[in-house]
C-alpha cells in the first residue's frame, strides 16, 4: 500500500510505502467511516419506513401529506 506525494514547489512526485502505523491508522479510520455511513443509512431507512407506515395508517399518499403541510 503506497502513498503518492506531489511537491508543488518542485513538481516532483514520489511514491512511498505506508508505514505499519499509517496502515493501522487508515484501517481504523475506514472502519469508523463505514460504521457511521451504515448507521446514517439505517436511520434514514427507519424514518422512511415509519413515515410510510403513518401515511398508510392515515390512508393518504406522500403527495397528499405534503399538500396538507404546504
Amino acid at each position, binding site marked *: *500500500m*503506497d*502513498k*503518492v*506525494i*506531489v*511537491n*508543488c*514547489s*518542485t*513538481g516532483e*512526485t514520489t*511514491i512511498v510505502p*505506508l508505514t505499519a502505523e499509517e496502515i493501522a*491508522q*487508515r484501517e481504523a*479510520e*475506514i472502519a*469508523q*467511516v463505514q460504521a*457511521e*455511513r451504515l448507521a*446514517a*443509512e439505517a*436511520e*434514514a*431507512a427507519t424514518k*422512511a419506513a415509519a413515515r410510510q407506515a403513518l401515511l398508510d395508517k392515515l390512508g393518504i399518499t406522500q403527495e397528499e401529506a405534503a399538500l396538507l403541510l404546504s
Partner: protein
Amino acid sequence: MPATYTFIASNTLSTSAASVTFSSIPSTYTDLVLRMSPRDTQGATDSQCFIKPNSNSGTVYTDTRMTGNGSTAISTRNASNANGNVVGFYSASSATANTFGSLEVYIPNYAEAAVKQIVTFGTAESNAAEVRLSVTGGLFNNTTAISSLLINAGNNFVAGSSFFLYGIKNT
C-alpha cells in the same frame, strides 16, 4: 469574485495508492481549489474520500453533509473527528467499468492564521446503478496556514485517478 485561477500541480496515478498529498503548496494565493476524478478499489458501488490539511491527525475536523441517491436524502454531522473532512462519494469497483467520480474542494483563505472552511461537492458515476452525490460544509479547526493537503482514499485510488490543484487570487 476571483480574478485568477492558476494551475499549481497535478497527478494522474500510474498505480493504485492509498492517498495523494500535495506538499509545499505556495502561500501566494487567496483560496485553493482541488478537482479530483478518482475511482476506488473498494468492493462497492461507491466509496468516500477525506482530506486532511497539513496531515493533521487531531480531532479538528467537523462537517455537515447532505447526501442524496435519487430516493433518500440524508443529512449528517460529524463534529470534532480525526478522520479528516469528508470530500464526498466517488465510483468504486462495483460501479460501471472505467467510470470515475467528480469532486471539488474549495478552501478559502487557506494561508491565513485562522480556522478554515472546507467546502466540497461531488458525485460518483455509474451507468448501471444508483449514484450518490453530496455537498459538505466543513471546518478545519486549526489556525496554522495550510501548506499541504492529504487526500485519503476510501480504500485505494485506482491507477488513472487524477488530482488537480489550483490557486485563486482575489486581485
